[in-house]
């Protein structure tokens, strides 16, 4: 299996959770166990769009109970004999090997996953600054030799990239350090909010300089947050920024 594997460095490892929970896209070769007409394959692929039921495979890292996953699209690309090439956009935790097996059952010829390439993990795609291990090792030695800082800036992206698809809440400088100490976000600290936030949703708390401060669960909707003048708007789940980057402007209580 090849493709997009975002690797978080040092302090950025705190953000891995956000990638694990984000949607993925794969290009897959499915091997049918008997020849099938193309239109039949196309229609079954379509049936596996929307919310599907999936039982994790025997070799899985989660409990093997039936669960639902969202399939955003299953795009037929090509059929060649018994090999079917298709592209699938899916929710985190969808097993493509199992999807192929289940599609095979629905086609009543059975099938298995032959090859898989991940083309997207959240905001990371194979077309956006993706590098191979060879390129990485080459660029790293280039940088060490030349001391040219534009080199690592090219192949390493700020961790904030990871949060591109999460709804964001921008806060005052004076609210930053309290969040870094684990406090929840209160309404007066909020400067701006993105649309479509619903309560109990993962959001990213940002400074005005667009630095990530924390991952937080919303406690109110966008509309409510805009209306609130006191009270908590989000519960801090994972602090991403170091303490002391912004000044401590909150009073230490007892």
């Amino acid at each position, binding site marked *: *299996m*090849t*493709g*997009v*594997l*975002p*690797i*978080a*460095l*040092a*302090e*950025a*490892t705190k953000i*891995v959770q956000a990638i*694990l929970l984000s*949607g993925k896209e794969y290009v897959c070769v499915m091997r049918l166990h008997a020849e099938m007409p193309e239109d039949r394959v196309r229609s079954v692929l379509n*049936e596996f*769009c*929307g*919310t599907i039921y999936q039982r994790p495979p025997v070799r899985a890292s989660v409990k093997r109970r039936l669960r639902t996953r*969202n*399939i*955003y699209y299953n795009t037929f690309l090509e059929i060649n004999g018994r090999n079917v090439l298709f592209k699938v956009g899916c929710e*985190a935790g969808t097993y493509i090997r199992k999807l192929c097996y289940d599609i095979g059952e629905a086609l009543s010829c059975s099938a298995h996953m032959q090859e*898989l390439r*991940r083309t997207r993990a959240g905001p990371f795609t*194979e077309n*956006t*600054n*993706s*590098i*191979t*291990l060879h390129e*990485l090792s080459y660029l790293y030695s280039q940088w060490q030799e030349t001391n040219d*800082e534009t080199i*690592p*800036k090219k*192949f*390493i*992206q*700020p*961790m904030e990239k*990871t949060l591109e*698809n999460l709804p964001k809440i921008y806060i005052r*400088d004076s609210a930053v350090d309290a969040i870094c100490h684990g406090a929840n976000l209160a309404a007066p600290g*909020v*400067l*701006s*909010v*993105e*649309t*479509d936030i619903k309560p109990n949703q993962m959001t990213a708390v940002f*400074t*005005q*300089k667009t*630095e990530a401060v924390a991952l937080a669960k919303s406690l109110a909707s*966008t509309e409510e*947050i*805009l209306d609130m003048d006191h009270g908590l708007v989000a519960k801090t789940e994972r602090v991403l920024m170091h303490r002391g*980057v912004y000044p401590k402007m909150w009073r230490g209580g007892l």
Partner: protein
Amino acid sequence: MHKIKPPWETKRKLIVKAEEETDPHFGHRPEERPIREHIKFGIINLDKPSGPSSHEVTAWVKRIMKIEKAGHGGTLEAQ
């Protein structure tokens, strides 16, 4: 079948609640971080080769970059 939009196609708008300047003395815009911090708070979009496991690939990245800690986002089976 009910269609569900992928999260990466969701477009959001920003609504301002209050205005305030940010003090340039504190923090940095992510793209302007000093190089050491850029790496410390950085992420590599690696194109994983076939063969080694995601875990092994992550270990290689650590070795190449000479860093102590790294983590990958979502296992891709080896094979």
